[in-house]
């Protein structure tokens, strides 16, 4: 049965026009998704570096006097607190694709460290947990990022410019929690002294609130909770998000204008065809809907191909650049997917308006008579 109004008929028979529209949209999907994917991965890795905050809070003394005994006793006796471990917070720098991010390293007595690892269900993939001062174990992801292996001697005393102060021997690789690094210390090692506070199950939020309001003292005691980490990350990541939004907006607007112009030219060329349909007694609404369906079908193909190519590219980028550097990279990111949708939707909406205006003003008899 002949189907003159099949949605793909026009563009299947005008391959150059289809290729122009599909290529235009594909390119813009690639740009949006690629830029979005890169920025999103940087954001993900910055968050991962602070992922400890999902599991415990930290109370630090900002003065040489340390945390008063009564404050420490209050923390230990708080009903929402499951365990408190003395800790010295060190740090190192983990590379991102561009630049680095700071990663905390929690150093504690060897005995506490074993209990702490048990409380957090930290597994050892290779080697062992630190058992003596000067030993360090870190997540396999972080080890890849830092290019450290079991047996390596690391630290500022070994390599100039290293942010981890002192000299440490890598004794183990940890699983499950990315960017976790634990070191055994005699507590005299350099670092910010404080306490790791583990909350009881389901009492994290209340405990954190109490710590932030009752324990934290300006310029004396700092409390690092999940919320405070989130707040500090927001500022850092907000810049990336703003860049992403700006780039997406620029590409979306440019692409929408260019593709809409292209689509408009293709539609305007079909005025005699539309005039014929109207003269033959087809309702204008149906003619508009049909032209829009044809255009949307091509735009959808362009979008889908753009997404398919982007996904392929992301797999390659992840395998070639991110995974070897121990960096996380999300291949299928719903947020990026959402960023790619406004462009084809906007083009369709603009075309719907243009088509409606064009057909409502079209003097189809003049076109049929060859006077227009």
């Amino acid at each position, binding site marked *: 049965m002949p*189907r003159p109004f099949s949605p793909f*008929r026009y563009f299947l028979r005008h391959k150059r026009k289809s290729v122009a529209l599909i290529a235009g949209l594909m390119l813009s999907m690639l740009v949006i998704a690629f830029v979005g994917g890169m920025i999103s991965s940087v954001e993900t890795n910055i968050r991962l570096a602070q992922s400890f905050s999902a599991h415990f809070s930290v109370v630090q003394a900002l003065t040489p006097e340390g945390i008063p005994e009564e404050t420490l006793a209050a923390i230990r006796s708080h009903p929402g607190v499951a365990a408190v471990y003395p800790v010295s917070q060190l740090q190192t720098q983990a590379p991102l694709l561009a630049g680095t991010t700071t990663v905390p390293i929690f150093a504690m007595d060897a005995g506490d460290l074993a209990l702490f690892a048990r409380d957090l269900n930290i597994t050892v993939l290779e080697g062992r947990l630190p058992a003596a001062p000067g030993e360090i174990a870190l997540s396999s992801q972080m080890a890849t990022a830092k290019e450290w292996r079991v047996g390596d001697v690391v630290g500022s005393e070994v390599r100039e410019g290293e942010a981890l102060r002192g000299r440490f021997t890598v004794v183990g690789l940890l699983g499950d929690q990315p960017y976790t690094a634990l070191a055994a210390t005699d507590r005299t090692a350099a670092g910010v002294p404080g306490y790791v506070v583990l909350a009881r199950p389901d009492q994290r939020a209340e405990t954190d609130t109490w710590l932030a309001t009752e324990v934290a003292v300006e310029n004396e005691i700092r409390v690092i909770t999940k919320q405070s980490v989130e707040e500090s990350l927001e500022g850092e990541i907000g810049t990336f998000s703003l860049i992403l939004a700006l780039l997406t907006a620029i590409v979306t607007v440019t692409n929408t204008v260019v593709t809409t112009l292209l689509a408009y030219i293709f539609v305007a060329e079909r005025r005699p*065809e539309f005039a*014929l349909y109207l*003269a*033959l*007694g087809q309702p204008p609404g149906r003619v508009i809907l049909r032209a829009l369906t044809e255009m949307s079908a091509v735009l959808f193909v362009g979008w889908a191909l753009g997404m398919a190519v982007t996904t392929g590219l992301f797999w390659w980028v992840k395998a070639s650049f991110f995974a070897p550097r121990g960096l996380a990279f999300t291949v299928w990111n719903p947020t990026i997917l959402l960023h790619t949708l406004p462009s084809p939707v906007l083009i369709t909406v603009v075309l719907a308006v243009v088509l409606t205006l064009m057909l409502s003003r079209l003097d189809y008899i003049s076109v049929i008579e060859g006077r227009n």
Partner: protein
Amino acid sequence: MLEARNLVCEYKDGSRRLRVLDGVSLSLQPGKSLCIVGPSGSGKSTLLYVLAGLRVPTSGSVSYRGRPLETMSNAERVRLRARDFGFVFQQHFLVKHLTVMENIFVSARSRSRETLAYARYLVERLGLKGLEHRFPASLSGGQRQRVALARALINRPAILFADEPTASLDSDSSASLMQLLAELRGETALIMVTHDTRLLDQFDRTMELVEGKLRQVSRRVS
């Protein structure tokens, strides 16, 4: 079936008003044919489009089956054109990216097996067999106009409006097209405008449009 009374059609031409139709009246009975002749620019096409409800007259009335077109809504007139009227335009106006068969189906109101069978019948009778999957660009002028005729007849319209369908054809192709039109239209009434006076004897009635006024030229005795 179709009746026009005192049709007046005026156009603005700069500051002047041109009266193209000046009190035109006519009627057409079911199955009958009417030819309207006149020199180029005499308003034949305008009259045809007014009769078909494509143009609205300045004054006067066109009634189809007793109902004035001007009392119909836009949507009703659109439905009427799709359901009861067929059109063959001066230019074939085939859709370039559609095949012969798809062009015929552009105006088909039904996609039934009967319609397909009728389309095949028209294709065969119009000498288009074997060309069903060809595109208009590869057809001759006569073939294109025959496809346009098949498109106009596919719904078995009550009235076929033809606007100089032979204008771009040579005399053999014109005679052939008119012959086929006469054979295929069956119960369909026909109103054709033309300036080709050789075709007049093929119509039940012929009227001439001169300076916006219509007058009877001849009546064939059947």
